[in-house]
Each structure stands twice: as C-alpha cells, then as structure tokens.
C-alpha cells in the first residue's frame, strides 16, 4: 500500500523502520524534510553517513568510539581496578552522567535471551574474561537491566567471576530519589521494602 510516488514513499518507509517511529510520524518527518532548505537536509545526510563511516566500537570495552579505543579506556586517570559491566553503550552514558564512577566499563552488547537466540557467545563475555585475566581489575560491578534477562546475565557472570577471586557486586534496586513515594510502582516499592536498611545514628 504505497500512497506516494517513488522516492517520497521510499523515505517514509525507511523512516518507519526506525525505533519509536510509526507510519504517521514517518510521514510527518518526511514532509518536514521535503520542506526544509537544501543545506539543512545535507547536514542531516552527512551526519548519517559520517556516523556510520567514522564511529566504531572500542576494541577494549565495546563502547562507541571514533578511535580504536574509546575516550574512557584511554583516560589514565581512570581507576583500572574497577570495572562496570553494562548491556548497551547508552548505559555507559547514563552512568557517566552521575560523575560518581571513576572506573572503566565493559559493554556486553545485550543480555542473555534464549527467546531471541542470544547466548553467552553472542555477548562480549569472552572479551571480558580476557580483560580480567591479568588481575588488574579487582572489583566488578554488574549494572545489567533489572529485568528477568538482565538478572540472569548478572547471575551467569557472577558464577564465572567469583572463582577468579574478584569482588562482584550488583546495583541495588529501589526507589527513585527526589520523587514521591506514592508514585513508585508496587514492584519497586516491594523490592525497596525487602532491601531496607537500619539507620545508624
């Protein structure tokens, strides 16, 4: 069912493949591009081709990078004894925003998910083991998503890392800070109750 001629429909179809973009939005973006001036469209087109040509994945941690190694892996001020394992590169950005974590990262590229056919070999777990072999890293923080697949991945990694004498920790789950208790969903609130702490005065 193509409503428009040739290239316009092609553009709409391509845009519609993007995550979070439905057919209506795709159509709106396509017509926005059509009405924009040529220079702006060129800038967008260049940005798209450049990102694909220049960006690759850091050979050490798997984060997105324009060089062979990413900014964080190259930074000598980072604590080499501390490693945070995440599912996606966007999780690195989220943790970096806290400005609290001074160690380095390892991006797995997903989580164990048999339904989608993702097993340990499809994730960057072998690279993680190679990285840990020299003994520099003494603590691993597992920051996979707090869902069924993320938890399973965390448990799998913990089982492999503990025998190597590495301290393994998992991010706590609980209440969002700065929000109202009443807005927390019952599952988060239930977990927060289970993980409550006594207060030392």
């Amino acid at each position, binding site marked *: 069912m193509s409503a428009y001629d040739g290239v316009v429909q092609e553009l709409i179809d391509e845009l519609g493949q993007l995550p979070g973009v439905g057919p209506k939005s795709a159509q709106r973006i396509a017509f926005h591009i059509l009405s924009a001036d040529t220079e702006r469209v060129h800038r967008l087109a260049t940005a798209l081709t450049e990102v694909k040509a220049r960006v690759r994945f850091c050979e050490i941690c798997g984060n997105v990078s324009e060089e062979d190694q990413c900014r964080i892996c190259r930074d000598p001020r980072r604590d080499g004894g501390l490693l945070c394992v995440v599912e996606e590169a966007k999780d690195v950005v989220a943790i970096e925003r806290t400005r609290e974590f001074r160690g380095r990262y390892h991006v797995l590229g997903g989580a*164990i*998910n*048999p*339904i989608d*056919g993702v*097993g*340990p*070999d499809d994730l960057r777990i072998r690279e993680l083991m190679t990285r840990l072999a020299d003994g520099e890293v003494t603590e691993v923080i597992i920051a996979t998503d707090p*869902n*069924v*697949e993320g*938890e*399973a991945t965390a*448990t*799998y990694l913990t*089982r492999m890392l503990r025998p190597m004498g590495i301290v393994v920790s998992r991010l706590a789950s609980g209440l969002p800070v700065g929000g109202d208790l009443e*807005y927390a*969903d*019952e*599952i988060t609130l*239930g977990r927060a109750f289970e993980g409550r702490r006594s207060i030392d005065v």
Partner: protein
Amino acid sequence: MYVSDLALTDFRSYGEALLSLDPGITAFVGPNGQGKTNLVESIGYLSTFSSHRVASDAALVRYGASRAIIQAKVVSDERTSVLELELVSGKANRARLNRSPLPRARELLGMLRTVVFAPEDLSLVKGDPDGRRRFVDELLVLLSPKLAGVRSDYERVVRQRNALLKSAAGARRGGGNADLRTLDVWDEKAAAAGAQLTAARVRMLRDLRPHVQNAYERVSSGQSQAEIAYRASVQQAMSDQGSEPGGEDALTNADLVEAQLLEAMSRLRPKEIERGVSLVGPHRDDLELRLGGLPAKGYASHGESWSLALALRLASYELLKADDWRSDGEPVLILDDVFAELDSRRRNRLAELVAKAEQVLITAAVAEDVPEQLEGARVDVMGSVATRVR
C-alpha cells in the same frame, strides 16, 4: 464498595451509555444478545483488566471504533473516586483516577474489587488445571499486588527456559552439542520465583479453605464435604524420585520449595532436554477439588460441580471481605447469567448468601430467573439501550 455511576464509550455494543446504580441489588434483564453482560463485563474489566468472557481485549472495543472508554464512579467507605480506563486496540491501556492520568494503568487495579460469577465458572471444577491456576493467581494478586510482579517474572523465566531447552533439544537431535551453560542460571531464577509463587499460593489457599468448606456446605445444604488441596508438581517429582516430599506445611516455606525445585530440575534435566519444556514448577501445579472424598472432576454430578464452582467464588468474596483491614469495603458481586444454570434449590441458596452484599449486579434473560429474595432495582436492556425501570 459500590459503583454509583457507569459511563461507556464504544465499549462492545455500546456507542454511548450512561447509567446510575444504587447499592444493593440491581438486575439487568433482557433477551440474549441485547447487551446485558457487556455492562457488567465493563465493571469486571475495570477491576481486573481482564474479561471473564474473552482472552483478547480487541473484541471489547466496539467494531469500527479505535478505542473504548469505561468510566465508573466508585463509592467506598464514604469516599468517592472516579475510575477511567481507555482501551486502545493493540496498545497499552490508559488510566485516569479522579480525572488525572496515572503513569501506569495497572495502578488502577485493586481500586475497584469485584467477584464475578459466570457460566464459565463450571470449568473451574470440570476443566483443565490452567483455569484453576488462573483462579488462584487472580485472587492472589488482588490480595497482594506485589505478587503480580513475581508471577510475570516467573512466566517470563519459564518462557526463556523453555526456549533454551527447545534449542538444546533441537541441537541434540541434529547430532550437535547443546549450549547449556546458561541453564543453571535459568534453573536458579525459575526456582527462586517459582518458590515464592508456590508458597504464596499455598498460604492463600489455607485462608481460603474454611470459606470454601463453609460456602459449599451452605450451597449444597450439607450433602457432602468439600476439600481443596494444592497439587505441587515439585512434590510429585520428589516422590517419583523416591524422596520424601513433605506435606502442605513444607510448601509454605519458600526456601525449602526453592531447594526442592532445584533438586527436581537437576534430576529431571535429561527428560526436560528431551521434551524441550520445563516439567516442574507452579506452572504445572493444580488445585485438587474433592467432594466427600472423591475427586470432583469426573465424579461429581453436574449440580454438585455447580455448587462447588459457586462455593469457590463465594469463598473468594468472603476472603476479600475478611481482608478488609484497609477498609476498601467489600467487593462488588457480579452474577452474570448464573441463575438460569442452577436448579431452584441452589438458586435460592445462592440468593440467600448474596442478598446482604453491599452491591450485587445480576444479569438474566427473563425476570423470572432472578430469585424473589433478590428483589431490587431493575434495568431493562434492549438493543444496547439500558433503561432503569425500577
């Protein structure tokens, strides 16, 4: 609690409907196919986000419309709240409480509590185990919303575990080696979530049991005794393997069940890989119903089966009422076309038992189907138009 006003937009056969209701008894009367059940179904849906008639929500949106809206004013303990749910076909529901949108629709769950009696209930006694598991889990989630998370986690883990077992079975048949390195992890997750769910179910069953026995005795006028027991697949597996499975007490101890599940899974592993499915856990459990010592399924007569199904629903109602320490008020009772299914004796017994409830909504094809004890307000329903006549 009771529903004082109901407004429907594009729900089922209704384009627009507006209806005021009173506490006490209301009968919706009209020939079949005129829209009686749709009205009470909308109230049930608002309470549980599931329909007692269909599994998919698509049929709830009026044919040709893009979304349906259910609005209800609920009075509970002198407080009035307006609940609104928008069903968009193929998308997540959107909910509002007192006109302000809720971040998650499921926060509306539990604001309106209902117990629905329907002809489909007979399958609780005569049907497959999954209907009885759903009965237990739905009641469990009403009593303890946190368990909705445990239940959905468990279902997800089992699906992941089955996918892994299936691919392992496929690899083995192809002569290759199956990648089972992550199976231990899935065992661990399935055992942890499964044990929590099992223990919660059995603890609830203990609270439900006296209510079931009592309700059955009253519905059947004491002909025989109803018994209800939890059949745990993990205990079956333990005794198949020659171990002492322990009794019902053991099932309420989540740590113990977790250890038993792990052991059963490790012993069943070759069989699970061969079959490609998870063979042990709460998704394989059942509720065993007995009458006078004999299994109800297969042995009970049609009438006895009906009495037992009614007893299960009445017991749910009593349990929710007893759980009223939050003073939510007692649940709204919905009796959808059940009186036509019952003989006059059971009809009268049921009528006596529900007559004093805070709000009872009844549907019936003809007014004569509604027992005399349940005289109250009456709404005639014809061609998807509801008219209050009394």
